[in-house]
């Protein structure tokens, strides 16, 4: 049972940390609302979509995806900080082993992402018409896309030795994944090369899944979206477990201590 208690411990710790990093938590919630209000409102005035739905309603699933992606992935990427500051080796030294550590981190990141995505999802009635019967499906879809995001974050962290700041991850990885997913605009009009990238992007299918769940016109069958999202999540977990190097930060572990010194003896001890 050590695996379950380790997962429990990691999840409780990560959630506790997240609630105490209020600026990061507030920033993670504010970001999608800023996009919804500033970009969504602006584009709403100038955009006419073929489907006929208003732009701010069209972009809403993409904004939920943004909250889930950033919340889940960035929480998982913080594994790199744990590696730098010695907490990861504590987890790796536990009897539970790497799979339990990764599962704990993934679950915690998913819950943080769901919290952030859930807050955005909660304002759905202000933006679009959502029948009460769709809520369970919407929450389930949010859980699926957030879990995928969390695993992507762990995959990014698997081989990173250090993260100076998260801006690089956000700009180089997360925004391209989001922009090439149909979250903010339909991908149909993209040039062929970008269209190919969009089709190879698992986030595209995650956004499509959210559109299904929120009752919007979607590009693919829900079954295809589900297969890609769940498949990507499982694949990311397996690749992360393979790439994860438990000896990182331990290798070359010569002592950093002081040179021998004539210090007072411990004296008589009982």
């Amino acid at each position, binding site marked *: 049972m050590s695996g379950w208690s380790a997962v429990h411990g990691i999840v409780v710790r990560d959630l506790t940390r997240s609630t105490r990093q209020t600026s990061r938590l507030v920033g993670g919630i504010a970001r999608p609302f800023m996009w919804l209000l500033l970009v969504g409102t602006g584009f709403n005035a100038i955009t006419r979509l073929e489907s006929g739905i208003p732009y701010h309603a069209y972009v809403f699933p993409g904004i939920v995806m943004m909250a889930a992606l950033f919340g889940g992935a960035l929480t998982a990427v913080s594994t790199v900080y744990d590696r730098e500051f010695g907490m990861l080796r504590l987890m790796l030294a536990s009897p539970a082993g790497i799979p339990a550590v990764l599962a704990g981190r993934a679950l915690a990141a998913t819950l943080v992402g769901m919290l952030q995505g859930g807050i955005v999802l909660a304002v759905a009635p202000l933006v679009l018409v959502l029948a009460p019967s769709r809520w369970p499906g919407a929450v389930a879809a949010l859980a699926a896309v957030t879990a995928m995001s969390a695993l992507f974050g762990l995959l990014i962290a698997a081989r990173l030795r250090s993260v100076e700041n998260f801006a690089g991850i956000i700009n180089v990885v997360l925004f391209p994944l989001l922009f090439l997913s149909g979250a903010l605009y339909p991908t149909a009009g993209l040039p062929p090369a970008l269209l190919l990238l969009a089709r190879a992007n698992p986030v595209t299918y995650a956004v499509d899944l959210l559109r299904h769940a929120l009752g919007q016109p979607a590009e693919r069958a829900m079954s295809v979206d589900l297969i890609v999202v769940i498949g990507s999540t499982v694949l990311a977990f397996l690749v992360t477990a393979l790439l994860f190097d438990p000896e990182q930060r331990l290798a070359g572990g*010569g002592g950093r201590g002081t040179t021998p010194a004539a210090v007072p003896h*411990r004296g008589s001890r009982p």
Partner: protein
Amino acid sequence: MSLAIEAEGLGRDYGDVRALDALDLAVARGEMVGLLGPNGAGKTTAMLLLATLLSPTRGRARVFGHDVVGERAAVRRRLGLLFQETSVDGLLTAEENLLFAARLAGLDGRLARAAVADAIGRTGLAERARRPARELSGGWRRLLDIARATLHHPDLLILDEPTVGLDPEHREAMWSLLDAHRREGTTVVFSTHYLGEAETADRVVLLAHGAVVAEDTPGTLRAELGDGIAEIEGPGAERLARALRGLGSARVVFRTGRGYRVGIAGEREPVIELAGKAPGIERFGLRPTSLEDVYFARTQDAGEAAAR
């Protein structure tokens, strides 16, 4: 009854660098063993190998009969580990840090809470248990770290420089806590640069250049250098050291940063007489042999052998 630790030819390379050559080590259950040696001697590598956190390049090791490569989980269940750098989450309270560690060790629910309460009581952390760990002083953070490493009552404690940077009060508190675990039968392997701390170990293993250069009880290791040590400083120190060697009283001569030390056996009067007449001696003193002398003498031998 199997040993707590059995290592045969245990070694680890980092690329072209041989961090640990071939460690042969047998530690009995309940024994306390101090690993000494200069920075880069292989102490931390040896501990990480025994703790299953590194894979050996060569050799093998067993902890309580379990192979450190093939039976990692079984080894880890018996192990309490203290790293050189403190492993404490500053955002969590001391109590939350311990609860996290208890769950990692496989304890949950009431068992975890009881272990945490016991650890807090043993370390005297009660007044600070609800404070964020980042607000604790370095000494208290280290004590919290040792509470974390011991709260599940491991059979083997591996401690990498447990008292580095601690003031005497916290150092005493740390050893007092470790002594309590030792009395309960816990096997302890620790490294330190504070050589006085190793005096109370059952056995000392001295590493240099990735190999064991001396291994015995502190008393035996000290006795091998002689009954006492003559410390000589000044421009005439080398000449006097050579003269003492010729006198037959000198068992061993070795250099330190400030001069020479000579291990003296037998009569001391001829030594004092010779030193009194020697020119260029700024400081001369006779004192009992310490582990620090053993450290300098043995690591210097190994260094010269490696240079040859």
